[in-house]
């Protein structure tokens, strides 16, 4: 399994556990059954990317996702939809910008199309 895939799997597991998780628990929960040391490496990488934080509990660390999945999605879409004025991404959207007046005119056009079907 690629590193990126494992990072994704670990993050998805952490996102479902707001109470945090131990590396051992994550290793057991992941379908690919990675070694605990592998999970620790992944967690270390994620911590460096500031996606994960950890707290000491006894002899082990408990790991938490820094932000919820929803927050990450909102952030990604804010960037992609260009509401922050980020045109440098140069994404080709199916639909980029809409003139509000367009929407009203389009509703009428759409009724025309559906009439034909």
């Amino acid at each position, binding site marked *: 399994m690629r590193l990126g895939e494992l990072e994704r799997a670990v993050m998805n597991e952490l996102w479902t556990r707001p109470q945090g998780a131990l590396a051992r628990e994550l290793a057991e929960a992941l379908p690919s059954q990675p070694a605990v040391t592998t999970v620790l490496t992944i967690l270390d990488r994620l911590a460096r990317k500031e996606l994960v934080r950890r707290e000491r509990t006894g002899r082990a660390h408990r790991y938490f996702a820094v932000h919820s999945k929803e927050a990450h999605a909102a952030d990604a879409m804010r960037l992609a939809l260009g509401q922050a004025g980020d045109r440098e991404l140069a994404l080709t959207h199916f639909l980029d910008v809409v*003139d509000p007046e367009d929407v009203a005119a389009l509703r009428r*056009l759409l009724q025309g199309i559906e009439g034909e079907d």
Partner: protein
Amino acid sequence: MPSAALAAAVCLVAVTVVLLGPAAGRLSQARWVERSPRTALVLWQTLLAAAFSCLVAALLTLAVAPLASPVPHGLHVFTRQVLAGEPLRDLGGVQLACLAGAIAVVGWSASITACAFVRQARRRRGHRRQVDLLATRNEDGVHLIDHAVPAAYCLPGLRPRIVITSGLVGLLDTRELAAVIDHERAHARGRHHLLLLPFSALASALPHLPAARAAHTGAARLVEMLADDAARERHGGAAVARALVRVAEGRAQAGPLPTSVLGAAEGALTARVRRLTRQASPIAPWQRALVYGAALALPAGPLAVLIPCMT
């Protein structure tokens, strides 16, 4: 300075001005572009390339004027001097300034394009990491992000990603969704981000030049139409048009719509929907041939002047 060279240079500058002024204005208003978006896109590229090469040629004409007349022969002499390792022989101060100007125009054009490419690639890398972390991949390689706002886009790169949101999936029926995904696949397959790169580079380098803005807006709209046509071929125009309208409505409900930085989105969507609901009617073959001929002749012109001196 020989007056013939000066007259030639003035003519070349005049052509540049006409291309970037009235010609660009006409092309951005033309209605036929909707019928043959690929040809229109080639015409935009040709227009910018021609304006660029006329400007460089004007400066070069002035630079080599004292070497020989007519101008092409002056260029031959200059090329021979370059090959002989003494490029600046017999050139005065004004000529050197013009030569430096020509080199500067070429260098500047190359550098704004390269910088735009690097800037875009860097900005996209961050977003690609977000997408790879968040999205679930469908069996057909489409990246799905859990988010209410309906959206679909192509994230270009070596391995392009098609990204859609759960909001989009909930809004469209199977056929419309397939049409949207094929629209985005057409962007990825056609490397449309590279096609648009010189246009966006020029528009951000010269934001106050109306022709630069018009060319970028025009090219961006045409690329959407190309992708619409690809989707239409497989799913029919009505499915693509319906998807466009549904997404527009969904976005309007989701909140304030982002306004275009390019400032020319007015009616763009309506135009796309209208053309999808009509039968395709490309322009005549001879008109297309004319455009492609011009596109070939323009870069060939300067080469044709130089080739006799190489042989």
